[in-house]
């Protein structure tokens, strides 16, 4: 098992290296002016106009062979220099550090109910195939897949904030914000719920939770649907297997047959999907973050893309790559834990 984990960890930097090479290769398709803008942060240089371009190309070695340019860029990257983000008005590294916690918090709080609820709903639906519960769950899944996140978010906001005042948008209330700015509340991670627990401040914890509720619900409804559908079909597949029939024939209780024999095997593809889904969520929360006024990675990436802010786009891509590779690593480890055959191979 340890060898397996070590091997997976060794692959981690290699994958990241491959991605950086791919990104850098794609960057070569930019126009010279756009490429220069990636290297030059001094506005006065750029303002000198196109006739000054050749000097800049020369000075920054943009005519050098691909490998030379790549090693220079990688060196800069390894020194932590991701460039200046025009859209965020700060260094890209600082922007990622600023926006990542908000998105991470939302994804973490939403992912637990998404995975548990999706698996549970899929199992129930499969074990009660063609009953009212199954039809209801499938209808729910269809609605979740079909309903635009924007509409769902606005509906939730109107119902649970505008009409009732229960769950406000944003990340935190005014009083909590003031407390944080006063310096009496220490920000360890930027994840408010976690920081509140570390500060022992339950009032801030519940306040942050209150602000998380609606975006989490919106996210859960949308994501539950796809996970539930996959779980249902893999569960149905598993329940048709001989080992399930054998388990039943041995006289095991139905709950044990479902939970220990069928569901454990049905979980394998779901784990794969769930890992990728959570990684994808981190970069794809534009709509939910916008409607619920949460400044996170999704809206940062959107703004960077709209402004052709290449350093920010590259920094964001690298971060998402790292998250995806990490999620895959976790998935692989879970796989090995769930299925002993993976360890042997």
């Amino acid at each position, binding site marked *: 098992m340890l060898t397996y984990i070590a091997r997976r960890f060794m692959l981690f930097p290699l994958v990241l290296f491959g991605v950086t090479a791919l990104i850098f290769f794609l960057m070569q398709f930019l*126009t010279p*002016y*756009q490429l220069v*803008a990636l290297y030059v*942060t*001094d*506005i*006065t240089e*750029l*303002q*000198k*106009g*196109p006739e000054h371009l050749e000097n800049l190309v020369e000075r920054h070695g943009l005519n050098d062979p691909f490998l030379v340019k790549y090693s220079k860029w990688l060196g800069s990257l390894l020194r932590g220099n991701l460039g*200046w983000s*025009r*859209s*965020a*008005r*700060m*260094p890209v590294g600082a*922007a990622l550090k*600023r926006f990542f916690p908000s998105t991470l918090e939302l994804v973490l709080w939403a992912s637990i109910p998404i995975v548990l609820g999706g698996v549970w709903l899929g199992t129930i639906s499969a074990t009660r195939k063609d009953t009212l519960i199954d039809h209801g769950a499938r209808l729910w899944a269809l609605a979740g897949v079909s309903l635009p996140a924007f509409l769902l978010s*606005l509906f939730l*906001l*109107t119902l649970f*904030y*505008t009409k*009732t*005042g*229960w*769950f*406000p*948008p*944003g990340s935190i*209330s*005014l*009083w909590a*914000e*003031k407390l944080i*700015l006063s310096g009496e509340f220490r920000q360890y991670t930027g994840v408010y719920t976690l920081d509140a627990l570390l500060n022992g401040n339950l009032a801030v914890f*519940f*306040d942050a*939770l*209150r602000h998380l*509720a609606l975006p989490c619900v919106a996210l859960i409804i949308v994501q539950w649907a796809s996970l539930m559908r996959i779980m249902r079909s893999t569960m149905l597949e598993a329940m048709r297997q001989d080992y399930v029939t054998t388990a039943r024939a041995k006289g095991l209780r139905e709950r044990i047959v479902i939970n220990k024999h069928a569901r454990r095997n049905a979980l394998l593809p779901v784990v794969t999907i769930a890992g990728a889904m959570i990684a994808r969520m981190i970069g794809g929360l534009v709509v939910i973050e*916008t*409607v*619920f*006024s949460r*400044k996170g990675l999704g*809206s*940062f990436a959107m*703004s960077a893309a*709209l*402004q*052709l*802010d*290449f350093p920010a786009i590259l920094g964001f891509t690298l971060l998402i790559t790292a998250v995806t590779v990490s999620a895959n690593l976790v998935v692989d480890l879970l796989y090995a834990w769930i299925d002993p055959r993976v360890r042997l191979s």
Partner: protein
Amino acid sequence: MRFRRLHTWAAVLTVVVLAVSAAGVAQSGTVNSPDTLVTARPGGIDTLDPHYGSDIGSSIFVGNIYGGLLRHPRFGTVNDVEPDLATVVPSSENGLVTVAPDGTTFVGFPIRQNVLFHNGATLTPEDVLYTFQRILITDAGYGADFRDILLGEPDINHWLEEAGIDAFWDAIQLAVQIKGNIVEFRLPEPNVVFLNLFADGGRYNAIMNKAWCVEQDCWPGTKETITDYALVTQAENPIHGKTNGTGPFKLVNWDVGSSVTLERFDDYWEGPAPLKTVIRRTIPEWGTARSLLEQGDVDIVTPEAWYIPQLVGLPGVNLVFRDESLTVTFLLLNQNIDPTAASIWSGQLDGAGIPPDFFTDIDIRKAMNYAFNRDAAVEASGLGSVIRTVIPPAVQYYDEDQPFYAYDPEKAEEHFKAAWGGEAWEKGFKFTLYWSSLVPTWEAYAQILEAGVEAINPKFQIEVQGLEWPSYIDGWWGGLSPFGGPFPVYVLGNIYTSTDASMVESVMASTGAFGSTLGYSAQAREEFDPLLALGVQTFEAEARREIYEDLQRLCYENALVIPSHVGGNVFAMRDWVQGFYMLESWRRGTDFYTIWKGYPE
């Protein structure tokens, strides 16, 4: 057994939900957070360094943090000025404005005593001197205006590359001097608009604390370092996100793209403000902003006109309409487009693009003017009215009898046929018309021009595309935007900072914001600049009227720009917001000092 467990979980969930939500239910009849004002706007702030401010979003906000020498009176009009950090408004009557026989003019500002900066330092004349020296060496904000009036040459490259640092430094030393407690400016000749430049109440010429600036690694105030500090990037600017002013509020936190928090400065020289905290949130989604307003979690929002019906009759919400009679919306035709910009497509007059000098042809400019339906623009904006000349009716010497380009597709067709020797009509053209998402109605104006032009000839194509404000404004300055730039056409609002007719300079002067970017500075230098110079040196009303009517005529004859309409604006605010006022120009911005929350007795 299973059902009992389910019920237990349901009960726990209900308790948690109720506990979590209970705190948030607004109590009717009470004022939410009485000492805190929360405003919401869709766009963010570009920079907090006032001398580098280029956008309204930044400048209207920093005016609450900094102070200037003069300001427009609160609840007054932009035609009046009153002292701010100076003790009096200089005039010949009080002896602070003197004119030598050769025309050299001296304007002195006695500096207010016992004014504190937010860091506790006391304001001195040295701070004022440093401030204006920094403005003079800066290639941003009001730098060019002050160089023009005080040094006679606005272009910083002239000083840095042609005249040289020594001459530049000597000119600066001569232009601003300290005489006791007075900071004196020396103008080579009298200038009608000079005092008005100071009256923006701490926006573009905010008074800085020299020691603090130097401590932050800003320009140290030495000749040798001028070149290094003439234009620094935001990444390099040490006070891009820091402030230390003399205004009624001090900066607590700038969460870029999300919010800015200000706190009352208790030692403000006019006494502490009623509000303790001001928060400006960036909320791009209108539905969210409206919900926050309805719940009272936001006090003031600025909706687009088409959202007004959603707000009428909303309990606890007042609509405040403001006649923005000094803000003119223009569609600007660029005669010197960036040849590398993607917006000109093929870059040639071949039906698939336009050449960079496309708008140098006067027939194209006239055709565009005739093809633009101003009435439709006013309708789209929801507020405002059509204007006939380059200046709005509220400005002096507005000439209603001037001819203007009323929407006329037939005349537009005539001019299109005559343009570029008939080639434009035969081959057609294509370009991208960008608009900034900062002002959503700008999209409508872009589409109105697109519709008007494309209806005339199917070979004419205009692609309308929205850009975020930073990319849009970077494209204006040229070379900074990844989209290239300057672009072929801009939709922009121009703010006339007073009702003095000389404000037309911003559109027509060779060194004005428009002339220098839009490629007509050579023509302006020859035809408009002499008249503009005469205008600011002439004090006799009738003579001035003639000059400015001539300028309006020249603007029409040359079809320099497409003046669309003067704007209006609406603020939606909770009924507990008191003491809110806005002048007729955005220049003053929202003054948080006068605002308090509550209900009058």
